[in-house]
């Protein structure tokens, strides 16, 4: 009753035999060893587990690993290329868009997708776009600033 799945995670191919009930977030964290996606709730509310599945932000705690079979996954560990930070990572750092850091990987990946879909978002678009990611520390202000900064940087 186990299934063999093959995923392409951060550009690398992984193949494992897993129980169908294994959640993608547990697969990434415990089988593959990528612990950047965090688990903050079990009701698909908080977004701390957000990863990109075929380029789209999804909550990895509400996706089965078997559903991701054959698909491409990008985690927070995979967005800095050749040791240089992604523009959104850099902006989060510069703008102090994180405190405890627990929501940050999910927040950054959602922000990346937001900018991919809307390169010049308004503040309102940013706030709505981040509705699926809860942060309890920052009050969101610096996160909004960071997304704006990343947008203007990539627009240069």
């Amino acid at each position, binding site marked *: 009753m186990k299934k063999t799945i093959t995923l392409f995670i951060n550009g690398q191919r992984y193949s494992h035999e897993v129980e169908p009930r294994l959640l993608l977030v547990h697969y990434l964290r415990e089988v593959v060893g990528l612990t950047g996606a965090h688990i903050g709730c*079990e009701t698909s509310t908080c977004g701390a587990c957000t990863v990109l599945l075929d380029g789209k932000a999804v909550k990895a705690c509400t996706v089965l690993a078997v559903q991701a079979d054959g698909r491409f996954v990008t985690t927070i560990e995979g967005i800095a290329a050749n040791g240089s930070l992604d523009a959104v990572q850099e902006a989060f750092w510069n703008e102090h868009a994180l405190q405890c850091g*627990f929501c940050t990987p999910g927040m950054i990946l959602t922000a990346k997708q937001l900018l991919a879909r809307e390169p010049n978002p308004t*503040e309102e678009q940013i706030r709505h776009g981040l509705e699926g990611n809860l942060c309890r520390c920052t009050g969101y202000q610096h996160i*909004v600033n960071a997304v704006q900064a990343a947008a203007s940087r990539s627009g240069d």
Partner: protein
Amino acid sequence: MATTTTKSPALLVGQSLRRREDPRLITGTATYVDDVKMPGMHHACILRSPHAAARIRGIRTSRALEMPGVVAVFTGEDVAHLGPVPCGAALPGLRVPAHTVLARDRVYYVGHPVAVVVATDRYLAADALDAIEVDWEPLPAVADPEKALEPGSPAVHPEWPDNIAFTYKQEGGDVDKAFAEADVVVRQRLVNQRLIPVAMETRGVVAEWKPGDRQLTLYTSTQIPHLVRTLVAGMLKMPENRLRVVAPEVGGGFGSKLNVYAEEALMAFVAMKIGKPVKWIESRRENFVATIHGRGHVDYYEVAAKRDGTILGIKLKLIQDIGAYHQLLTPAIPTLSILMMPGLYKCKNVRADLIGVFTNCTPTDAYRGAGRPEATYGIERMVDILAAELQMDPAEIRFKNFVGSGEFPYQTATGLSYDSGDYAAPLRKALETVSYKTLREEQRKAREAGRLIGIGISTYGEICALGPSASLPCGGWESATVKIEPGGQVTVLTGISPHGQGEETTFAQIVADELGVSIDDVVVLHGDTSLVQYGIGTFGSRNTAIGGTALYFALQDLKEKLKKFGAMLLESDDVVWNRGRCVCMKSGKEVTLPEIAAASYRAMKLPENTDPGLVATRFWEPPNFTFPFGAHIVVTEVDSETGAVQILRYVAVDDCGKIINPLLVRGQIHGGVVQALGQVFYEHAVYDENGQLVTGELTDYAVPKASYIPAIESYHTETPSPVNPLGVKGVGEAGTIGCTPAAVNSVVDALSHLGVRHIDMPLTPEKIWKVIQDRRTA
């Protein structure tokens, strides 16, 4: 008063440096408890009571034990030898129920731990949990603290049928006289609803026992690793030096991790019992019932005043919902509210009667602000109610009653000594920022056009830098060790345990300035009891004011020693320390810090009465709290059709003393304000009459989302504290403390012309709509 020997423009204190903690956090490479992995690690799941009150007639674990991968199931009897979950606070006559690690014959709240399953895999542990059979006999429960005080109410603990956990009184001045002489008395019942802290990372523990070394290591998501070590060692009856507690990366606390929990001792017990490392990660559902809640006040206020607005006296009857047990500081939290009763005002006559009440609910304890937001909410709402009664402007009545800037140190009626302040300054700045007069005019016009615009003001004071040791059951000092390594780099070991506040950066800024080293050469370590000297931890906005001061003094000690070595190397008595080098005043020759460090460790020659090496440790006891203050103004618009509130503007002017890093201070303010806006508009831990928590997940308990809140405009005034040489006061709770009354005052102000005087939080659209309906039909 901060003394540095140079005015070089390169000083880092005061600069908005980006954080040195962030690279690991933004790349997903930080290690939180759930990221800790060990060979042979097992997983634990905890069975919790679904009942608020019930007798346990029996527990059958045999089916669970037969499940695949299950190695053990433990129940209350198995851990009966462990000490109770500690209550650290002491009050005269305090009733402390026996708080065992697992329930034995009876449960007292939904979420009460009953049994623990240990399996080789977390999925298998979860499966086995369902196979434990408990024979429950449900009992009547009580969830409302005021109902719990009524005669005939179910007894939470049968031994205390009145449900009173403690009573406490405090009085200053002559309250009866003040009320007798008053022109006006206003009264109001105010509720500070129960809240759930919701740190984004739930709690978790990994325990590892090494029998050969008789050494136990606990990785736990905590704000207070050393206190956990002392208290868990006590519960386990184990020598303290056999227990190492590590707070790895901690994903938010807000007071909820300023505690010692049953699971910490329980996992230690399990690891020792099975001889393997064990991990327990709290689920969010567990977190909602098994981690402390905050607030839970019902306050009855009376304020006496003269017709000109002068506040003469304040009376408060405070009912604190304790929950089923005391956690670490539960009974102490409402006493902090009482200390802060008079706020920033000169009222010398106060009386408070506090009753702590047991309910069949999750224990309450410190949650961001811990007693101080409640007190500020009380006085700041009452001042607005008084202003409305006297038809005075809410800003004017505040100016009238402020402690004057020339009156510091100011002795309050509750026995505090306010350190420094200029309370009018932030209010003036906030009023200017919003163009108050124009804004009132716009409000009047909007009202004529049928729009409901409100302007809410709060001016708050807070007690920070907790605190002098006499005020805390655990001691209130803090420690720092600074090591200048042989190569000249600096390692700081701080007794605080930051988890997002940013001291790896701010402390490095202080070190870089004091020693004149590059910030890149400074490493700040914390959170590991085997690495760091004893410390108290992170809470009560104490990190920089106390921990930073301990660091500051350790740095002064090292500078003295550096000078001694410098004098020896320069062969001169007339030397000064000048940012990274020791300079001979006569010859102008100098030696650099790395040269001195090398010489001190090599120790070919030593100055007289001086040991080799460059290490200094300081334990610093603060002489007083610090008292930050500020003013917040909130402009809101109420949708008269739906009752929904929109925040049009939020202006915060905070004075937290000297600012080390403005960027980080702003972050603290934003976060605090939004957490408070959660209380004002969304959050409420709702129990039904049987003690079921009906807001049991994030799908029913709303915390603010990015789209729910506006941009926060954050400004500062800077009044140094004389309590510590850095002049800092603390900022971790300011936003939470200043916000709730300002926001509620704003909404009430929007409806004031309808005769609305008060609405309890959370200000949900339905509640506001009903108030408007009632007023319009009245």
